[in-house]
């Protein structure tokens, strides 16, 4: 009964490839997020969707494209992978409004680009 799940947990790929990370939440939340944890361990928001609508889009290369087929899913597609994309990517979800401050995170996907 995992609340926020991500697949795959580990992803090793070569530069230039295109890959996707999937995220699903079964909490009934309206809002979902993607965060990137870089080598310095900072967690930085990339995107946020509320009811399938994009509400936060930080300064992220347009090689990264989120897709939300429904409010329980938010997938992350990355085109033309670069070495600097290597990081841990976390999906999260929350209620809308004030409840958005308390976010529930998935276990993370460690992406390694070689």
């Amino acid at each position: 009964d995992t609340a926020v799940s991500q697949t795959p947990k580990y992803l090793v790929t070569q530069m230039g490839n295109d890959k996707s990370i999937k995220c699903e939440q079964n909490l009934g939340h309206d809002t979902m997020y993607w965060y990137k944890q870089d080598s310095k361990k900072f967690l930085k928001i990339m995107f946020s969707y509320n009811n399938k609508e994009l509400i936060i889009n930080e300064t992220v290369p347009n090689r990264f494209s989120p897709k939300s087929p429904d409010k329980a899913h938010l997938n992350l597609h990355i085109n033309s992978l670069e070495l600097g994309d290597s990081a841990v990517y976390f999906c999260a979800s929350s209620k809308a409004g004030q409840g958005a401050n308390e976010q529930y995170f998935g276990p993370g996907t460690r992406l390694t680009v070689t």
Partner: protein
Amino acid sequence: DQQVKQNSPSLSVQEGRISILNCDYTNSMFDYFLWYKKYPAEGPTFLISISSIKDKNEDGRFTVFLNKSAKHLSLHIVPSQPGDSAVYFCAASGRDSSYKLIFGSGTRLLVRP
């Protein structure tokens, strides 16, 4: 431009004693602050939060203190237990409608038996 700073990368405490984790912020528009706990190979989990209208919030062994004038908050864990050993992230959000969380870099807490 780090808006949320955790200047201590690590902290070691004896079991049963108090753990104090500190966090500073620079953006006066932040009005909600949270602490998340993270174990290795897991995502962060929400621990405790505080609104800017309060200066203290307590939940069991965990208490968060907010000093708005100093733009400083702290997390107190009393008594500390070995299972509390984890990385603790401070986070803040602002008065806009996006509820974007800005995280600090984390403090690794080790509670020694």
